[in-house]
């Protein structure tokens, strides 16, 4: 039934987007925590943090964007879980449609919803004095990296969405992910950290992604970091997609 894949995905995407447009609070909820971090770190802790850049909000924003995505993807798990629980998933799976279209529709919806949340967070940051020297290409590159990152994490979110036994279980997986930016260069430079922590921070995916976006925003050369960042995103995407497909296959045969 793959000949219907694109059409079926588009139909189901329309359905999910309608869900979002009818409960825009999910977008606001996604953006609230990152905005709270933004305010807290810029106006409360920021004065005490030595980053070497003129404005702390410029330093902080890339990490906040990643946190936005992490908090947004749990809605994919949540919506997928509700579809399974409510029988909608089985209804679709018993129909002559391209079966993976059901998953792709949720994933594409996540891209759209997260993009909107990211725009909201960037607007708040601009109001707080964030300024970027990036040109159109720089902004496009940032958008591309964020989309790739969102895509990878969303496929990761599909796994708990398909396997969870409770609503809380479906969204709880993202909590540990939210901690990762704290042990990275997102809030403070890694050279202020003690040895082993610093080693971890410098070799986990968040640091390379944050450093790349920071350089793009500053209009500076991104260096080798960008390849490390892309490799992390692509690697995560492949692993998460394969995992999600395996779970899906086990679920629907």
């Amino acid at each position, binding site marked *: 039934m793959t000949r219907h894949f694109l059409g079926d995905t588009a139909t189901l995407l329309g*359905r999910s987007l309608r869900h979002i447009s009818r409960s825009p609070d999910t977008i606001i909820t996604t953006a609230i925590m990152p905005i709270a971090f933004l305010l807290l770190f810029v106006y409360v802790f920021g004065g005490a943090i030595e980053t070497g850049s003129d404005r702390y909000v410029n330093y902080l924003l890339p990490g906040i964007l990643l946190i936005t995505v992490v908090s947004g993807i749990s809605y994919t798990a949540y919506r997928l879980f509700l579809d399974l629980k*409510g*029988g*909608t998933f*089985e209804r679709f799976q*018993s*129909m002559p*449609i391209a079966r993976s279209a059901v998953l792709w529709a949720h994933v594409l919806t996540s891209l759209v919803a997260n993009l909107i949340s990211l725009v909201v967070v960037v607007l708040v940051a601009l109001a707080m004095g964030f300024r970027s020297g990036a040109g159109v290409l720089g902004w496009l590159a940032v958008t591309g990296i964020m989309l790739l990152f969102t895509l990878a994490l969303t496929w990761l979110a599909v796994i708990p969405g398909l396997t969870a036994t409770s609503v809380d279980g479906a969204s709880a997986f993202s909590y540990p992910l939210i901690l990762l930016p704290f042990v990275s260069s997102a809030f403070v430079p890694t050279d202020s950290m003690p040895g082993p922590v610093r080693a971890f921070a410098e070799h986990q995916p968040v640091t390379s992604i944050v450093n790349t976006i920071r350089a793009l925003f500053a209009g500076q050369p991104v260096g080798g970091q960008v390849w490390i960042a892309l490799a992390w995103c692509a690697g995560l995407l492949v692993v998460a997609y394969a995992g999600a497909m395996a779970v899906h296959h086990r679920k629907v*045969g």
Partner: protein
Amino acid sequence: MSADQSTPSPARGPAIQVRGLEKSYQKLHVLRGVDFDVTPGSIFALLGSNGAGKTTVVRILATLLKPDGGTAQVHGLDVVTRAARVRESISLTGQFAAVDEILTGRENLVLVARLRHLSDPGRIADDLLGRFALTDAAGRRVSTYSGGMRRRLDIAMSLIGDPPVIFLDEPTTGLDPQARLEVWQAVRELARQGTTVLLTTQYLDEAEQLADRIAVLHHGRIIADGTLAELRQLLPPATVEYVEKQPTLEDVFLAIVGDTGTGSTGSTRTDATVAAVRPDGTSS
């Protein structure tokens, strides 16, 4: 509206054929060799108490679950190896209404019509809204619907595209008597048009009212399978005696709330004296 329109059955054999079907969940051996046939265009009732495995049988037939043993075919196509083809000729109404709460009733119907790749989904949706008395609620979100409205919408969604074989898993559980009669009427109408209907139920009277053939699933096997008349013959000969039949609470309820929407059962015999046929029960 012919049932054979979308997918002609390759052979004129049974619409559904189940042989030696087995399924276990971990240690729980739910199906232990289930056999039955369903004739095209008939209504077949699978009767069983809670946990008997009715839903399990339906999910296997609807290609949602793989059996551990045995075979199941729809129109001669194996539900495991030819699952994609089977899905073209079936439709499932699960035990719990699978409707999208956030969408309106009409949007739910349009969604399914689109997924079945039909032209003019809007017209199809409007037709069904009319048939299931949902036109007034068409533009409201399903989260505001009553249980009966949800179930009617759910069944309406399953009819889109006129699939020749329909599975209804406990279609009337949780419905009020009036909604129940409406669902029965819809099921009869389907069979009249040539659709094969397999329904599961815990209600003996539902099987009695609707089904051409009834199978009883118990402890993982079909322990009885036949027409109502055949099943009656399993019991000792009946004695005939005349008793005055008091109206049942259902009769009273339907009489005082007025129109039943169907009129085929119930209301006409509200205060009648009828012959009751009882098995004489001496054997037990």
